[in-house]
């Protein structure tokens, strides 16, 4: 089955019953976390053709021909994505287990809406369960990243 992960092409044998989460971790993309394995917690989120989905309940064979982006792909050359930098700068990371999924959800959001309201950010992140921060800092981080990205884009 052919597909791409973080702009790298793969042609791999995939089990019919395998989840995309298991496939990605098998290929070494360990930034994709296995939390609940039940579609609830969101830490396994990846972008498939630009849409954020939970990879634990997404069949691997459904990804044939698709473009997958994991959290590793947000910083392809080691340069942090503005979202990653903002999460660090605001202290939005505590235990960090939910962070890869949050970054992916937020990346899709900022791609669709460069200036989201706090309500929209909260509605977007509600599929990424965090038991440490209470969401205050992650919401601040997404706002900060959005502002920084707008500044760059508005030049």
């Amino acid at each position, binding site marked *: 089955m052919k597909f791409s992960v973080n702009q790298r092409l793969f042609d791999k044998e995939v089990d019919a019953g395998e989840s995309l989460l298991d496939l990605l971790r098998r290929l070494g993309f360990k930034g994709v976390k296995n939390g609940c394995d039940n*579609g609830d917690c969101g830490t396994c989120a990846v972008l498939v053709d630009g849409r*954020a989905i939970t990879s634990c*309940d997404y*069949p691997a*064979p*459904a990804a044939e021909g698709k473009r997958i982006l994991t959290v590793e792909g947000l910083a392809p050359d080691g340069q942090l994505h503005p979202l990653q930098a903002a999460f660090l700068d605001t202290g939005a990371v505590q235990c960090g287990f939910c962070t890869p*999924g949050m970054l992916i959800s937020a990346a899709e959001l900022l791609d669709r809406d460069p200036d989201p309201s706090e309500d929209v950010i909260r*509605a*977007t992140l*509600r599929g990424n369960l965090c038991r440490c921060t209470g969401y205050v800092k992650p919401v601040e981080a997404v706002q900060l990243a959005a502002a920084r990205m707008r500044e760059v884009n508005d030049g």
Partner: protein
Amino acid sequence: MITSYLHPESVEEAFATLQQQGQRARLLGGGTDLTLHTPTEVTTFIDLSRAGLDGITADDTGFHIGASTTLTDLLDYRPFADFWSGVLHTMLAQVASPLHRNAASIGGHLARGRLSDVIPVLLAIDANVSFFDGTYCEMPLAEFYSTRKNRTPVVVTGVHLGPDDGMAAFRKFARTTYDLAILNVACGIRLESGLVSWARIVVGERPTLAVNLVDASADLVGHPLDGEAIGQAAEKARESVEVRSDPRASADYRRHLAGVLVHRCLSEAAGAEVYA
């Protein structure tokens, strides 16, 4: 255990495979439910994503929604922002999270029926379901569910929504905003000369399949949708709805919720101020 994953490129091909494999095969929409709760006898997934069932089209009879259309696509579809009081938009924004809505398909919800906020709303706005059982068919969604025990497996191909000629509202009650509903209610109302000419009061997650409360709905017809009519309908809904207990809530609790949510839904449809 899944040992075969197929990508049919047409509805006919998907149906032929389904017929050939019988109980060993399941049609797959977004997979958000089926991949996690695969029946033990199932060894084949028939992925419908390449069968040409995605997208929404509009014509003079209303809207045709392909079964592979995701809940996000529906939520983003601008004509639905005001359609039947914007009830589809209101409901979809409350379904799980964007991560789920980006993958889950309306066809998956239609095929499963239960554990859904989508189905009560479709029933309340008089939707038709289209499917393929050797020929292409369309029938009211309520009839599709009431007759499906007598039907061999079909390929659900989509939903047909009629004209935007009514008012509707949706309410759900869940432990958290992200959770499945303990109970949900949708209502649809058509008015003529200020009087109700058609009504649907649908209660879902009872926890069985959503049902239109025929008597409570019929009592509204011929009357203005005022506080008295709404109060009586809510009381009748509370008394008449068939509910069960499960680990999520007791039958008594669900019965109480049904009365409250029907009152709020009808009040909202009538344009009255409603306690959230």
